[in-house]
């Protein structure tokens, strides 16, 4: 490639860094995602072992049962490095801000019926605690995962969940001021409907295999919970009341759609790597799917009463289909 500079052109000595040229098999320009990601985490010549877990190296492939010849195969199809991620989220927050402003300006939240508010808040608001736990569990994956491809994607996802927790709280405030938040906290800590869910996310806080945490939190739990709340429950509330709930949860819905593409591609690549991975992923998914179902069921009943079972069956079918598409036989 030659770059024109007025009347002269300068021929570069090389197009990219050595590690990227070796990866691409040719000296050609690399994307900013590749420059920001590939081969950057140290893999050798560590000086000291962690005093907190001396059985491991600082970054250690054996922190999960999953094995990969190349951990950078776990690429992000969205190509999110920090700049791309923050620009995408900046856009999403701008739209969300517009929705919150509009709802406020037109007095839509105040006009939402009291029954609708109560229905929405009892199911939706305790989810801020799920998002908060999700933030922590994704931070674990990001901290101890191997390679920058997975550590950065999960770092961004962890921050996303902090945002989700905050957007959830804002809806609560829009609907019912501070009382709503404390009622939701009481429900989370004491309400019978929420205890299996709480146990689920808290058990993950002591789970050691980071890839298992990813499967359990992001695939099994959120893979059932997000469609339940942001698709099905959203539709129910819209039909019964007005689309205000939709407007104030747009961030979560968009986030899930986008993040699912990333996660499914991670699972697909991991499963395709070797038979051991494929079997391990299947085992984890089966185990955590059953537990997630148990955790979500009382919430689904709270939301849909007698229709809960049928809806959950359908969502499990969809989740199984995602796994099958990723090449994982359950």
């Amino acid at each position: 490639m030659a770059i024109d500079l007025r009347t002269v052109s300068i021929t570069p000595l090389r197009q990219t860094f050595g590690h990227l040229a070796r990866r691409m098999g040719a000296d050609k320009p690399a994307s900013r995602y590749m420059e920001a990601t590939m081969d950057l985490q140290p893999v050798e010549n560590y000086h000291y072992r962690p005093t907190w877990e001396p059985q491991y190296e600082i970054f250690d492939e054996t922190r999960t049962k999953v094995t990969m010849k190349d951990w950078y195969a776990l690429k992000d199809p969205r190509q999110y490095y920090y700049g791309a991620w923050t620009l995408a989220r900046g856009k999403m927050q701008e739209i969300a801000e517009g929705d919150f402003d509009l709802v406020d300006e037109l007095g839509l939240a105040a006009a939402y019926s009291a029954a609708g508010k109560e229905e929405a808040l009892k199911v939706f608001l305790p989810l801020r605690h799920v998002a908060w736990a999700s933030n922590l569990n994704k931070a674990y994956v990001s901290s101890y995962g191997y390679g920058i491809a997975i550590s950065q994607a999960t770092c961004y996802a962890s921050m996303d969940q902090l945002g989700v927790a905050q957007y959830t709280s804002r809806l609560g405030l829009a609907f019912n001021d501070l009382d709503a938040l404390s009622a939701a906290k009481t429900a989370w800590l004491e309400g019978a409907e929420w205890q299996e869910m709480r146990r689920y996310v808290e058990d993950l806080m002591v789970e050691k295999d980071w890839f298992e945490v990813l499967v359990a939190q992001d695939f099994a739990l959120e893979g059932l919970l997000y469609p339940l709340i942001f698709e099905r429950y959203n539709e129910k509330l819209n039909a019964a009341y007005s689309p205000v709930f939709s407007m104030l949860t747009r961030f979560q819905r968009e986030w899930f759609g986008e993040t699912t593409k990333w996660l499914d591609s991670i699972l697909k690549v991991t499963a395709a790597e070797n038979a051991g991975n494929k079997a391990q992923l299947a085992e984890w998914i089966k185990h955590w799917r059953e537990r997630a179902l148990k955790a979500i069921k009382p919430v689904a009943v709270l939301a849909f009463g007698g229709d809960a079972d049928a809806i959950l069956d359908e969502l499990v079918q969809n989740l199984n289909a995602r796994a099958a598409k990723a090449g994982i036989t359950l």
Partner: protein
Amino acid sequence: MDKVFPQTTYEGIKIHDWDKWEDPFRLTMDAYWKYQAEKERKLYAILDGFNQNNGHLSVTDARYINVLKLFLGSTPPLELMAARGFSMMGRQMNGAGPRVACQMQAVDEYRHFQTQIHSISNYNKYYNGMDEFAHQQSRMWYLSDGKSFFDDAITAGPFEFMVAIGFAFEYVLTNILFVPFISGAAYNGDMAAMTVGFSAQSDEARHMTLGLECIKFMLEQDPDNLPIVQRWIDKWTWRGTRKLASVGMMMDYMLPKRIMSFKEAWEMYVEENGGALFKDLARYGITIPKCFGQTIEEKEHVTHQSWIGFYMKPQATPFHTWIPTPDEMDWLSEKYPNTFDKYYRPVLEHLDAQEKAGNRFDNKTAPMNCQVCVSTMKFNEPGDPMEMCFRESIYQGEKFHTCSDHCKEIFDNEPEKYIQTFISSHQVLQGNCEPDGTDVNAADFKPGQNMLDYWKLDKRALGDFNGSEDQKNFAAWREQATKN
């Protein structure tokens, strides 16, 4: 709870109420995304413009590009370690406030190493010595000091990490680390690096708050924490100081247009600002770091010793060295009236004469390194600039060398940690520094014969700036770009 947060007790720090440490940033994610997206838009627009217009030809002189080589090898890999380390803190801290603050710092650190790489990426297309930084980060002898600094911090417990990186690195030393690079870029026409630096500084302001909050939190929680915190402050201020010698060398020797001397920067950023900081912490019983006196004495020496040290190893770095011009030597005499003419000008003039006589000095031996900071042994005995400083400790019947009283003390406090230090001069003799695929058991194997391959070091990047491909290309391209 101990199982959820298993790391916050074993260092001996006593915490009674985690809620007393609030999130110092108080920034919601929507606000964060809004500000940061705005910053990224501007930053990448400037980088794109700079690259499209061959901005690299607008730098003062091609010697400046060696600053970027030093920077790329040493800094983004450490920012990456900060990202991973703060993620760990963002998982391990019991309190919600510090967890969120650490997570935010972690994601900012991703930003920093990535924007640094992006800003230097275009230089890599035209100049030698930058192309293998990712490979060299864990292999290059002179990058081992920075690596050991961060490896040491990340393998310590969470509170020590916060003192090491959050406080000593990001608070006490951050200005002298980054301001010279950013101002250096600005003074020398490098708008890409300058913009990245300025843009990062607005994040750094947040990070500084976090480091200081952590110190105050520990000290307010329990009086028993004071001696532990004091020992960490002593240790990490010294470790940071050692790491800064190369920044100082960049300021005094490598910037064609200088901002100020390292000595002046040290006085302004560390003696004055740092002094005020420790005065503020005195009410908690914290005293000025033990090494402070020695750093004041050394500020007139370390940069000269470092540059001469690198000049003497022309076969072993991916950046060029040179003897300062007569004008530049005069500047050094003026800035270092007590030391330059007396100790260092004669050495540089001697090396210059030898080089011109075709007898360029080339130290081919492996260096001796400090077991703690991994610097090569080159610093002088306190109070005696003509005598090199060595210390040694015996541990389990073996002798370990350190470069100073402070490094020796760090070693003696935790010998079981520091005997692990990866020192390439030793490892090479054990066959551990060979290119992949080398048979170290072969009859004719000689350790260290393949160092350039092990480092993936481009021969064009070695040695003297004078006569280098960089020098010729830059001159030719600038000529093409500026003349008819």
